């Protein structure tokens, strides 16, 4: 984990307009290493939009995001290399197997994929025997765990997780929470949307988005 180097995410004056509706305006936030930020608020308030903006997927209407004081739009920014974003969608092709998907994911990240390491991670996520099944044939919880396998396979300083607990059972939630705790303790950053009660005390900050009905 890249906890030894100073990593910090900063956003200034963010504004987001979706379907001609102003979701938020002049929003500033800063996340330090070893910290978790929970974005809270009622449905439709723009949690997912904010996360997508922070991940660099969609462009904010106004404002800028800095990763280690370099704008994430800057070509020199290491942000994409340091980021894992897991959204509502799986991010995996449903017509490929878990191994094929994860191998492709690692290649995209410049990692050299080894079948053995992928299988080990899948075993840890209780996906034994599911390695060569097409993702489309898996249950929702299994698909979710394949998507989350990215967190185990690829070291990254910042995780942006949109509703990471969706479709997971109690065992899976517990496993993911432990992984999140160890990530934060090692100096990583997590930005997430779901409130959780962690067994271990980790620094969690909450950013409450207010409905901005105009």
């Amino acid at each position, binding site marked *: 984990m890249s906890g030894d180097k100073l990593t910090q995410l900063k956003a200034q004056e963010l504004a987001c307009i979706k379907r001609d509706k102003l979701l938020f305006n002049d929003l500033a936030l800063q996340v330090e290493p070893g910290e978790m930020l929970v974005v809270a608020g009622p449905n439709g308030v723009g949690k997912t939009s904010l996360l*997508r903006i922070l*991940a*660099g*997927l*969609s*462009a904010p209407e106004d404002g800028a995001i800095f990763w280690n004081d370099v704008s994430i739009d800057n070509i020199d920014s290491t942000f*994409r*290399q340091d*980021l894992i*974003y897991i*959204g*509502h*969608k*799986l*991010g*995996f*092709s*449903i*017509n*490929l197997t878990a191994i*094929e998907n994860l191998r*492709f*994911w690692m*290649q*995209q*990240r*410049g990692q050299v994929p080894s079948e053995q390491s992928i299988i080990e991670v899948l075993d840890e996520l209780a996906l034994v025997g599911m390695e060569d099944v*097409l993702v489309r044939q898996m249950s929702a919880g299994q698909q979710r765990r394949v998507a989350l396998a990215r967190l185990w396979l690829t070291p990254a300083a910042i995780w942006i997780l949109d509703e990471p607990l969706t479709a997971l059972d109690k065992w899976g939630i517990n496993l993911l929470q432990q992984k999140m705790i160890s990530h934060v303790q090692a100096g990583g950053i997590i930005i997430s949307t779901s409130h959780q009660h962690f067994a271990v005390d980790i620094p969690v900050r909450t950013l409450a988005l207010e409905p901005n009905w105009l």
Partner: protein
Amino acid sequence: MTVFWSVFRRDWLLAFRQNAEFLQPVLFCLLVVTMFPLGIGPSPATLQKVGPGIIWVAALLSSLLALEKLFKQDFLDGSLEQLVLTPGSLPMLALAKVLVHWLVSTLPLLILSPVLALFLNLTWDMYWALLCTLVLGTPLMSLIGAIAVALTAGLNKGGTLLGLLLLPVYIPLLIFATSAVESASLGIPFTGQLAIIGAMLLFAIALTPYAVAYAIKVSQN
């Protein structure tokens, strides 16, 4: 380059996972060509006259059908947003996707083109010119088409909108390609038209990947 090849391999695998669905646009093209003699009569002289135009229009229509699927599944399952976030170069990746798409859905059309030429009673010279224009023209179609497909990936409606966007853009290609075949039928050299299509293709290879990459980003907004 590893980015390019890993995307290439992935898309190649995906194409063959889907029950040879990629052959459907080619069959569609064949059917469209079959409809014309039934519509205008089987007279060999007439068919020879209108043949090149028919084949090109059929190829344009079938490529529209095929292109529609270029980013659809990736958009739906979220692969596309992950690809946007990868450290690798997005234009390169777009180029790889278009290349695979051309190989699996348009190359069969080229292989089938002798049959089309026979159906429409083209002479050997005309067929040769037609093949040259198809080889240079269809990649151009895929590259330009990919921009519009990426732009409309997020929309639930696709088909007809894509046609509205793309068919006007394809007009120059159609004009030069059919004029090349006509020149060939008259025994006039058609290198001029080929050179123009070739130039357009080179231009497209250089520029469209960036446009497609931008369009993919727009689709994620």
